[in-house]
């Protein structure tokens, strides 16, 4: 049995690319949006995480 036969059985598979494009565009917009909303103090704390082991 060829591998492709399994995939031909997916119904409506042609819509997959469109859905995925939408998911990604929305996801990107959300990432950028939330990134700008991030709290400055919080950023300052987490970007210093690599240095925490020196303080101990």
């Amino acid at each position, binding site marked *: 049995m060829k591998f492709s036969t399994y995939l031909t059985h997916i119904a409506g598979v042609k819509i*997959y690319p469109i859905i995925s494009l939408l998911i*990604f565009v929305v996801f990107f917009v959300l990432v950028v949006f939330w990134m700008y909303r991030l709290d400055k103090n919080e950023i300052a704390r987490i970007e210093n995480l690599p240095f925490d082991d020196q303080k101990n």
Partner: protein
Amino acid sequence: MNQEKFFYDNKIPKAFAIACIFWGVVGMLLGVIAAFQLAFPILNFSDYFPYLAFGRLRPVHTNAVIFAFVGNGIFTGVYYAVPRLLKTPMWNKALSLIHFWGWQFIIVCAAVTLLLGFTTGKEYAELEWPIDILITLVWVVFGINLFGTIFTRRERHLYVAIWFFIASWVTVAMLHIVNSFEFPVSFMKSYSWYAGVQDALVQWWYGHNAVAFFLTTPYLGLMYYFLPKAADRPVYSYRLSIVHFWSLIFLYIWAGPHHLLYTALPDWAQSLGTAFSIMLILPSWGGMLNGLFTLRGAWDKVREDPVLKFFVVAVTCYGMSTFEGPMLSLKNVNAISHYSDWTVAHVHIGALGWNGFLTFGMMYWLIPRLFDTKLYSKKLASAHFWIGTLGIMLYAIPMYWSAFRSYFMMKAFTPEGQLQYKFIDIVQTVVPFYTIRAIGGTIFLIGVFIMVYNLIKTAKAGKFLASEEANAPVLAKEYVAPANSIWHSLIERRPLLLLVLSLIMVGIGGLVELVPTFLVKSNIPTIASVKPYTPLELQGRDIYIREGCYNCHSQMIRPFRYEVARYGEYSKAGEFVYDHPFQWGSKRTGPDLARIGGKYNNVWHFNHMLSPSSMESATIMPSYPSLYENTIDKASTNSKIHVMRKMGVPYPEGYEAIANQDLEKQANEIVTDLVSTDKHIKISSDKEIIALIAYLQRVGRDIKLEEKTNK
């Protein structure tokens, strides 16, 4: 708040660091040998034994550098950085040990089996199925340990380096499993589940993303940890690192088809690969600038500190190769670069510059800390830096030069419309460049030896800190989200969700790319005259794969005038439907073989494989005398035909039982032809060379039959 006392283990990072350096030396040494082999074929030692011929050695070199050197480099960084970023020891010591020894065992198995000729014939995934399973198991052990650590952490936020590690782990798992679908024929022999175009697409989806998620994203994780540590200042922009992460893992997975431009791959898939490759410049350069800007106002430190010098060049090389990569995915540039030394130069800017120098920088920073001392000699480290840089230049420049030189020679026509140069003329003019390249590689390796000396001296001067004590408050059960951080509360504090989202990101990219090719029948037009291989040809093909012929010979003629004139009719997708695995190759050190069938007579092949230089004095191809002694493994014919039929190759039911009769008949015919053409030839029909000749005479011929019937 409740402070808890715990210990960071240094033994495992130390073990991985030693393994990384050790395998680095081995892998690079093999690379140097392979490089010299191309300039001096005698170094293949193939007159004495087949094990060190270029076709077998080169996969050991690539696998050693990628999975042994860089792999152990990743684990060194992960086992050092992750506990410190999460304020907890690694979750399970036993799993850490299993991971370490399991990985080293795999490397040894890989080296031994590849040299013995056990290979699947798919680049960077050459290992046979039992080792593939072993890799999966050890990778799962690593994953359990990583996530165990994450779940027992004392720091709510997962620092961006850890995101890169998580995404790398899950994507490598997916790539490895999908690309390794293979049907075992026997212990240590299998056929790829996919055939022809589909196999090519899956392979380069894997191959490209092995570069992305094994050589790039985990090393970006290391960059985001060790660069700030070495510079003693936080990363330039943490916000940028967030965008860098999500956009990089999203875009990378789509770019695979750019390895197959102008091939028989459907056009839409090629365009998809190009489009996403161009977009990749943005996140890649965002990441590079984020790394370099971290040093803003601290460039005076770079002058003093060899660690930072290495990091700066590593990040610059990252930027260079991630600019070059998208450029190479443009069709007009790819026409020049593909199958040429340009690709070799490109990957070595990445491997020597980005992976190599980042690893060296990390080691110069880490080893003194593990041994609680100062680096033995900054001067030697600086010397290593300059020697290494010189090595990279001497490696890359001749390769670029050779690529353009051979391109212009390949496409040169005389005024009468004939090809101006034979392939061998072109080989002859680039051999000196191969020599310089090998010297460049040697210089780079000398630098590594200086590092080894320096680090051993450092370790001897200090005392190994087996563990380091630390204190941190217990993770509060009640989660209080920081201001304006919906994102954080939704995803970044939830490692499993982060894992799943990363998987969805890369999974969809992979699906969209792969599914339609499997799905739409019209993507691969079938050609009626293309028939399955005869049993003898199939055995011959397996010998072709075993000897790693694909490392130097492509089987894919692109639709260019200068290729068609040189090699014959350009390749069609439908020609490869029975090729498990595909053998398109990625580099032409020798000529393309897609239409080799019928080009020369049997005697030519017979003499050529025994002594290539007797047919073509300037050739750099190794000889294959062992093929004249080894007998064809007829016992395997039955199971080979059986497995092929299971995968859809239309051999008649029950054919496996009588296949050897056909095999012997065809072998006798070839021997009769050999002996009648050249009376000096003495060979029995059960020798491997007969099978190989049968295969080579078959390659690319089916379509010629089609032309005949159409006329």
